[in-house]
């Protein structure tokens, strides 16, 4: 197994709210290898976005890392100080979010904003920064880089704003890009272009991408490897074609079976019984067992470990395979 660029080991994140403690992430484990696009997929409440924020240590409100490690090039980011993290954010790990309008300051031009970023991280004068910015605008396929540089955010379409965000994220030399639902707010034709862009950046610049999304189609078409998250844990992870074809974990299977494309027209859709847990009441054993049609008695008592099945590279956390574990 190649050396992982980012390795999440048994990560736990908790939030204290008035209603109680919420364990948004509860023992999450996966790794992202150099030069790959890795998909972290799951429904709302599974902890995928929180994990992304935890990596760059920008958890909101009362969020705290309560356990586990986040290894980046072997160093534990969870143990680093804020000063150390500031040297990493933007420089080595960058992040892009769902809504570009919320990330761009409306009273400054694009040029002013990216200039500020470049010079903060790598110094240099205004002219050097401008040329670098224009280079990156070309790299993200913006049609008229100088015009974009001189304009204000609100004049750009959603797709163009997101390209600008990607340029801003990567312009200081980051090797890992965490993209949290980067195309969810965009039209589907624009989404296709942005995803193509991410693949191109990976191919041409060797940037690794942790793509967080709820859309299985996006994962299928863009990510080499995938991890399926449920209730703050990973239930299955491995090469994307294998995970989508074999669907070892009952949740993976349920998720794919619930898609409208999974049935023929006229047939009833197959939802997963029950609802996603709210994170307040801890569930004994496997978090999915109350909704699982194949649950064994042991599932209610012991939380299954994430273990390889069939291949060293395809893991699942399910008692059904414990005898078959490699």
């Amino acid at each position, binding site marked *: 197994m190649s050396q992982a660029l980012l390795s999440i080991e048994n990560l736990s994140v908790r*939030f*204290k*709210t*008035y*209603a*109680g403690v919420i364990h948004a992430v509860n023992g999450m484990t996966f790794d992202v290898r150099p030069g790959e696009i890795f998909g972290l997929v799951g429904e709302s409440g599974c902890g995928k976005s929180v994990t992304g924020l935890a990596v760059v240590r920008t958890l909101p*409100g*009362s969020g705290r890392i309560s356990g586990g490690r986040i290894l980046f090039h072997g160093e534990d980011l969870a143990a680093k100080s804020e000063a150390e993290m500031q040297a990493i954010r933007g420089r080595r790990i960058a992040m892009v979010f769902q809504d570009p309008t919320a990330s761009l300051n409306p009273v400054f031009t694009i040029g002013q904003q990216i200039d500020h970023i470049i010079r903060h991280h790598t110094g240099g004068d205004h002219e050097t920064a401008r040329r670098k910015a224009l280079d990156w605008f070309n790299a993200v396929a913006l049609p008229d880089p100088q015009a974009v540089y001189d304009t204000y955010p609100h004049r750009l379409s959603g797709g163009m704003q997101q390209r600008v965000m990607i340029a801003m994220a990567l312009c200081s030399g980051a090797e890992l890009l965490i993209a949290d639902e980067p195309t969810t707010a965009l039209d589907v034709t624009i989404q296709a272009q942005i995803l193509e862009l991410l693949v191109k950046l990976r191919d041409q610049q060797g940037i690794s991408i942790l793509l967080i999304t709820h859309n299985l189609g996006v994962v299928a078409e863009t990510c080499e490897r995938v991890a399926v998250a449920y209730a703050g844990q990973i239930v299955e992870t491995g090469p994307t074609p294998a995970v989508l074809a074999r669907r070892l974990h009952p949740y993976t299977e349920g998720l794919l079976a619930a898609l409208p494309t999974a049935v023929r027209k006229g047939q*009833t859709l197959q*939802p997963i*019984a*029950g*609802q996603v847990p*709210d994170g*307040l*009441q801890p569930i004994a054993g496997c978090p999915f067992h109350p909704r699982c049609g194949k649950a064994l008695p042991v599932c209610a008592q012991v939380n299954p470990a994430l273990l390889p099945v069939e291949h060293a590279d395809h893991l699942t956390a399910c008692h059904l395979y414990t005898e078959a574990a490699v």
Partner: protein
Amino acid sequence: MTTTTLSAEPAASPPAVPSERQLIWRAFRQDKLAMLGVLVILFFVLTSLFAPLLTPYPAQGAGAPNIIEKFKAPSAEHPLGTDYLGRDVLARIFYGGRSSLTTGFLVVFLAVLIGAPLGAVAGYFGGRVDDVIMRITDVFLSFPPLLLAIAIATALGSGFVNTMIAIAITWWPWYTRLVRAQTVSLRERYFIEAARSIGVPSFKIIATHILPNVLTPVLVQGTMDLGSAILTGAAINFIGLGVQPPQADWGNMISQGRIYFIERPWFAGSAGVAIFLVVLSFNLIGDALRDAADPRTRRGEA
């Protein structure tokens, strides 16, 4: 098929998520200064309500002079001394609270009563109606509030009720503006469209959906305004337009006591301190409420 839909969705679990109101109250409670302010206000409200029972000098509080004892410094029998007519100052403070506090509460109440519905109507209907209402509002807003209040009070004549009406007339436009802005954003919410699609008449929508949902910002603004309303009332009383002596009011106590202030500060001073404490408390409460009401500034979870 029905069985699939019924069994697939279990009953709603007991509410683990507190409602917006509960969250606001909990966040508010955490602000110690604001809670202190609440205690101060409670103190003044209770003392003015039960003034006749709390002071051994109810008659003096109400105005009866006691010339023999005039200008007495604070002592055991008169904790805040006596004023220029020998009346116990503490009693005057309690009685004066009735006038000042009532002015504050009623002014804000009247202003909201007039201003809020106007703002909701303007915001909901938009167009011509909005233009007309907002232009009228603008006219009132373009006068310096205190001067306008004095002008109206002068026109109406002196007296407690006239003072309140005068101040309320200068105050309602702020609530119209506030409520109109809230209404314009509320109007876009789906439940308003749902009510319209059902055919609910517009005025019913305003009364049952819009107004209750603008309650929180109005409450916050109103709380902060209470202090200012009391100050304005005190100012009008100070210049002699409102409450007439011998009736007690913190404003006219200051005006009557100021010539004696250098050597005998206790009666003007006490009234001044009372106003200060009450206004400060309302401001602290209002600030805390505003921070608690906005999810972005709300004091987070632990």
